[in-house]
């Protein structure tokens, strides 16, 4: 017998298994090429020197940090509204990956900050909002794991994700709304990007690579999560069968 709440995720799994190898392959190639270009080919910056190469990790991971959160929020919304359990699983799978990207963004950022601004950290709008994003990820993860009953955790964390989504535009536009040390968008500017192609190419390669990596990781984690739940269900079914027999005996 099959119950709605666990609409058996075979369809999702089939799709996931189909995508996984491609995503993994693409990630490897793109990131490889991206690293080669950014550290081999692209010129050092005329004023920043070699440290500019940090950008090729910093910027894509920053983008991914925001992108991942968007994914988490959308998946959460789907889970809450259409009550589709797989959506929650995806959100829970994506959160730690996004948290890692955010951490990388923060780390590379402050590494870059030392030579550029002469300090590891300043409490300016963008840096702060990214830090908040990081905390939101941590809150989401903590909340999702804070209950014995998985379905309780996934719904609670989903709500948090939706409320926290307010933070995304703040990150994106903080540089425009407040005057910050951090430099404003130059690649993602409407119209012509004001950045030289020799830098743009590796940057985009890395960005695409990170995206592929993200997809691959999420698929792997989601599959693992689904398997874990299936096992948990089996175990507790066993336990209670024995329990029932124990009482009747």
């Amino acid at each position, binding site marked *: 017998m099959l119950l709605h709440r666990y609409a058996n995720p075979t369809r999702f799994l089939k799709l996931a298994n189909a995508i996984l190898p491609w995503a993994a392959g693409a990630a490897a190639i793109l990131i490889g090429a991206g690293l080669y270009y950014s550290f081999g080919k692209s010129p050092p910056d005329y004023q920043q020197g070699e440290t500019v190469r940090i950008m090729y990790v910093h910027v894509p991971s920053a983008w991914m940090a925001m992108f991942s959160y968007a994914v988490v929020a959308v998946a959460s919304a789907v889970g*809450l509204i259409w009550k589709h359990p797989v959506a929650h699983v995806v959100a829970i799978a994506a959160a730690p990956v996004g948290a890692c990207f955010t951490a990388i963004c923060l780390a590379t950022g402050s590494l870059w900050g030392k030579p550029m601004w002469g300090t590891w950290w300043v409490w300016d709008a963008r840096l*702060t909002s990214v830090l*908040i994003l990081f*905390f*939101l990820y*941590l*809150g989401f993860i*903590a*909340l999702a794991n*804070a*209950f014995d009953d998985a379905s*309780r*955790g996934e*719904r*609670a*964390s989903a*709500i*948090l994700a*939706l*409320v*926290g989504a*307010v933070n995304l535009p*703040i990150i994106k536009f903080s540089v425009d709304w407040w005057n910050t040390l951090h430099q404003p968008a130059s690649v993602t500017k409407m119209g012509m990007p004001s950045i030289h192609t020799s830098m743009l190419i590796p940057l985009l390669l890395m960005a695409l690579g990170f995206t592929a990596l993200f997809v691959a990781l999420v698929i792997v984690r989601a599959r693992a999560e689904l398997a874990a739940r299936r096992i948990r269900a089996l175990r507790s079914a066993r336990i209670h069968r024995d329990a029932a027999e124990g009482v009747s005996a």
Partner: protein
Amino acid sequence: MTGFMAIVVRDLRIALRQLSDSLMVIVFFVIAAALFPFGVGPEPNQLARMAPGVLWVTALLAAMLSFDRLFQADYEDGTLELLAVAPQPLWLTALAKICAHWLITGVPLLVASPVIAIMLNLEPSGLGVLMATMAVGTAIVSLVGALGAALALGSRRSGVLLSLLILPLLIPVLIFGAGAVEAVLGGFEARQQILLLCGLLLACLVLCPWGCAVALRAAVE
């Protein structure tokens, strides 16, 4: 609507019978704020400079102390289940409890803040805007805090978990609130920050009761 009042009145009654929450919050507020003059050293001008920030942060942290019990008691003694099956939308119930919470903890904070402001010799010129922003700020805190409390309900370690959820969401309140006071002290207008705070309040008034309702349903199921 009668149900709404019933909840507010009940929570106020219980709070007054066992003063714990409000007093706890105030005492912490005073202790924490009183600590800084010792820490920073008594140069008045320096104290005055950080007074707004210290006031706001300590107020926020003090509020944290009251959220753990907000829904916990009703959850444990089974009242929450009855609230969930009462013929009244759950978001209204949540809103009622939030109002009660604001009256129990927000208002006392509001009353205490001028005293502490003077302890930290903030210039009197800032008191007005301080109170104004505090009034709005504490309301936002109650709303967001209630959401956190509802989310963390029935989890392990709820006390720390929910402040981990709430505090990041409250950072904007802190920035604008403290900013407003500093602006006035600096001789500028504080309209912008106050408007932003009111905007936040409206957003929370829409989002938080809804979020609470969904979270509470999940908690009693």
